[in-house]
């Protein structure tokens, strides 16, 4: 083994290290020339297109379906009802055993007997073109008997409210309580107690490429090949096989370019399962691409929480206790297989997480309702926990007349206190709240901003500054899903191969969603094996090709997949050097691989190129000494074990202006300091942070899935559902503090979700800072002009 422990040379700063360098992503040129391969672009011979007849009612019994006319329509291949499809695809129930008491009802690929939300598929129409399928879908006659919908989560558990799934007994999917420390005593002894109700609107991912799948059942091979925009190919392989009655090796999932995921494309969707089942039923390829309206009514929605929060504080700024009561509505089914209880569970886990306070009481209730399904989306639970925590901390500061920076300084867990844990039991290996806060305050020029704020206030301009400290779950171990019985891998693998010209191919089980996973894997392999990065090609997203693994979610690809790639690269280096040693009559330990050549480890003098050693190994193995068998492929896997999650931390700040006449909020600047451990590619990390922030700013100000009391989505189009566009978004400054995880040699934690975790909290606090002269506050997001004007008493 080459020695990585020589002075000044860790695995990360080897002579040709790419760790910490902003190298461009290898796949950008393809995407820039419009030569990506998205599932939407796929065409296969004999391919049928499916369109779905979807329920116009939030809750209705399906009395009868008459498909006769649709079946006669031009180009139609088949019209299939839920009952017919159930012969090919078994239903599923979205529960996990470690979420005690979580219950849900069986969900079918296409509804059987009853529709439980507006937009649920009632029948599938397959035709030669999508347009023909849509035309025919309009000819399917469905008799519905409308049932009373349950839409208001506040009354979902009331005795008079209908129970959506009578066999479950009530509309409560899950409940969790936590009581740590001495909460009652802390409130009794507090100098001030402040409470507020925080509301979080339902919103959704709006990936620019909608969900898309092409399923190709080949009866001749007995194999189903599924081209899918997914974050978790192996999970999908397992689930599709399971519900279609196939063995896992009969299913291959291929994931090429994906037009945005963000957690939207990590779940099992009924209509995608239907497409796979239809391919098997019809013995030909079937394509389904959601249109935008379908995306709004069937892509998972997120958030939709109302949290009652209470904080106890002493005059010196010490926080005495946090108490929360969270209520969230998840639609009619818990999503499969990750469940819809994870977000509320995370809220309970995360509230108060950055602070030393040990007194914490929480309750979370998760209820069913007749709206679209709700599940994990980027930064699961974090924006809620962060907004509640940081909103309460600011209210506490206001109550005792303390600056928001000062109250955080006095309560954030000290940087030298690690390892430690939170009141809710989260384990922290090494965080940097104070270093992050100090850096942020310096970056933003806090004192000058405050002075500007005061000056402008005198001119009737109302600007606000808001902070949000946060912690973020990354690199999850099996504690997330595996322990609950889900076949969702928490480990990842990498196979690195030296080919006959000295170039390297790495097959990795993480997936590329545009975040740059393939770039990061290439950087790590180039570094640990010792070649110029141009020589490394990374292959992801094919269950026939890559090692088994989890994929890309929960900020895990770089930290877990990256470590597997690092170790695989090292192992291959060892294999190659053992052969080089035999050829060069040197001990392998005295050699190294740098810049694509075998060199003397001491002097760096080149001994032979990798192309030469590959030539000998592959074409002239007869010249090698007896007993030397080159093994120029190495595979390694990695999973974190010491800590269930590698928590990251950071802090965000927002500077904005509230127009008190129109209610509009203008974002002026946004700052983030975050600590994701080793930064493999600074540019990619910064862009993950910025993109994440904007996905938090959207729900803070604009994004909201609006339902009426009958469960009808009122704004299911991009014209009506507002997303952040370039003109409204601010420039975002990003800074870093680096506390590597010592669990892995790479030391990287995740960076994909931190931006989303704290952005809305910073904005809410900034708006309330701006509104403070008016003695009013807003604790519901999105903070629309209407809400601002109402808070000001102007409408």
């Amino acid at each position, binding site marked *: 083994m080459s020695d990585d422990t020589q002075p000044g040379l860790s695995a990360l700063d080897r002579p040709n290290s790419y760790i910490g360098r902003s190298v461009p992503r290898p796949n950008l*040129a393809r995407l*820039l020339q*419009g030569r990506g391969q*998205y599932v939407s672009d796929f065409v296969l011979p004999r391919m049928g297109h499916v369109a779905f007849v979807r329920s116009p009612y939030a809750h209705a019994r399906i009395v009868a379906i008459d498909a006769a006319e649709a079946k006669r329509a031009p180009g139609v291949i088949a019209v299939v009802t839920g009952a017919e499809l159930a012969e090919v695809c078994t239903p599923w129930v979205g529960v996990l055993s470690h979420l005690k008491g979580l219950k849900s009802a069986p969900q079918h690929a296409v509804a059987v007997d009853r529709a439980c939300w507006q937009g649920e598929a009632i029948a599938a129409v397959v035709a030669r073109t999508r347009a023909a399928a849509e035309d025919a879908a309009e000819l399917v006659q469905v008799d519905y008997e409308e049932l009373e919908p349950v839409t208001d989560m506040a009354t979902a558990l009331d005795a008079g409210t209908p129970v959506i799934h009578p066999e479950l007994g009530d509309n409560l999917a899950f409940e969790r309580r936590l009581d740590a420390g001495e909460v009652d005593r802390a409130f009794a002894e507090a100098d001030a107690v402040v409470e507020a109700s925080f509301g979080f609107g339902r919103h959704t991912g709006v990936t620019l490429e909608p969900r898309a799948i092409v399923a190709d059942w080949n009866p001749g091979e007995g194999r189903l090949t599924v081209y899918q925009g997914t974050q978790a190919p192996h999970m999908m392989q397992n689930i599709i096989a399971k519900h279609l009655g196939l063995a896992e090796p009969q299913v291959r999932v291929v994931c090429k370019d994906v037009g945005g995921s963000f957690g939207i494309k990590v779940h099992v969707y009924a209509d995608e399962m239907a497409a796979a089942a239809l391919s098997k039923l019809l013995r030909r390829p079937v394509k389904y691409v959601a249109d935008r309206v379908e995306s709004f009514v069937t892509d998972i929605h997120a958030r939709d929480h109302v949290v009652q929060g209470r904080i106890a504080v002493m005059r010196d700024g010490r926080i005495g206790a946090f108490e929360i009561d969270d209520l969230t509505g998840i639609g009619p089914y818990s999503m499969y297989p990750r469940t819809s209880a994870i977000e509320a569970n995370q809220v309970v886990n995360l509230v108060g997480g950055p602070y030393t306070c040990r007194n914490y009481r929480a309750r979370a209730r998760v209820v069913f309702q007749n709206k679209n399904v709700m599940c994990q989306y980027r930064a699961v639970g974090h924006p809620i926990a962060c907004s509640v925590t940081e909103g309460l901390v600011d209210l506490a500061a206001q109550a005792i007349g303390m600056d928001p920076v000062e109250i955080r300084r006095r309560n954030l867990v000290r940087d030298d206190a690690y390892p430690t844990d939170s009141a809710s039991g989260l384990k922290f290996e090494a965080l940097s709240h104070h270093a992050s806060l100090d850096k942020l305050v310096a970056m933003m020029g806090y004192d000058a901003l405050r002075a500007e704020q005061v000056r402008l206030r005198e001119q009737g301009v109302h600007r606000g500054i808001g902070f949000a400290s946060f912690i973020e779950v990354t690199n999850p171990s099996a504690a997330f899903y595996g322990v609950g019985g889900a076949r969702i891998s928490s480990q990842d693998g990498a196979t690195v191969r030296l080919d006959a010209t000295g170039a390297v191919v790495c097959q990795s089980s993480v997936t590329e969603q545009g975040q740059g996973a393939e770039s990061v894997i290439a950087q790590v392999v180039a570094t640990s094996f010792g070649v110029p990065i141009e020589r490394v090609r990374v292959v992801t997203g094919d269950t026939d090709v890559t090692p088994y693994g989890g994929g890309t979610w929960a900020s895990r690809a770089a930290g877990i997949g990256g470590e597997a790639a690092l170790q695989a690269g090292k192992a291959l280096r060892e294999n190659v050097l053992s052969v080089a040693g035999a050829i060069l009559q040197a001990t392998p330990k005295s050699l190294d691989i740098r810049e694509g050549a075998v060199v003397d480890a001491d002097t760096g003098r080149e001994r032979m190129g990798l192309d030469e050693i590959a030539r000998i190994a592959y074409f002239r193995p007869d010249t090698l000494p007896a007993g030397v068998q080159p093994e120029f492929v190495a595979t390694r896997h990695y999973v974190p074990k010491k800590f269930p999650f590698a928590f990251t931390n950071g802090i965000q700040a927002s500077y904005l202006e509230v127009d008190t006449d129109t209610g509009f909020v203008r974002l002026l600047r946004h700052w983030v300091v975050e600590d994701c451990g080793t930064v493999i590619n600074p540019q*990619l990390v910064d862009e993950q942070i910025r993109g994440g922030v*904007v996905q938090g700013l959207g729900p803070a100000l604009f994004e909201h899935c609006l339902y009426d009391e009958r469960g009808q989505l009122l704004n299911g189009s*991009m014209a009506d559902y507002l997303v952040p566009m*370039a*003109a409204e978004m601010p420039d975002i400054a990003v800074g870093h503090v680096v506390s590597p995880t010592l669990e892995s040699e790479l030391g990287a934690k995740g960076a994909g979700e931190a931006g989303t975790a704290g952005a809305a909290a910073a904005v809410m606090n900034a708006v309330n800072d701006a509104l403070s002269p008016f003695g009013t506050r807003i604790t519901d997001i999105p903070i629309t002009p209407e809400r601002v004007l109402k808070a000001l008493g102007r409408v």
Partner: protein
Amino acid sequence: MEISLTVNGEPVSAAVSPRTHLADFLREELGLTGTHVGCEQGVCGACTVRLDGAIVRGCLVLAVQAEGAEVWTVEGLSDSGEIADLQAAFEARNALQCGYCTPGMLIAADDLLRRESAPSREDIREHLSGNYCRCTGYQAIVDAVETAAKARRGTSA
């Protein structure tokens, strides 16, 4: 209906149904899948193409309306090298993640730079405000367009 037009410099004739929009025509008839479809309501900008020198939403123009027109898509503009500087700036700045908005974004940005040699960051944000990007948060895109504008000024001066 029979239509004849020029796409990326090549003459094209085809029979299309009157309801087929230009983006579907380009993607499905001609296999030019670089033009992406995001909302089909003219809001997201993913299907932006150049038609007779102006940028249009491919989903808001019917294929039959393009009769006799000259259409350029990202594939043609890439092969001709016309937007190579913007593409290089996008690559250097990582101004794309999933890449789905990118063809439309490039064509919209090029439209601005053809008309405005020194746009401010606000001008760039305003001009691109009809092109939705869910990944980047826009700042990298604004940076890349700013860089390309500067470079174009440098080479034309």
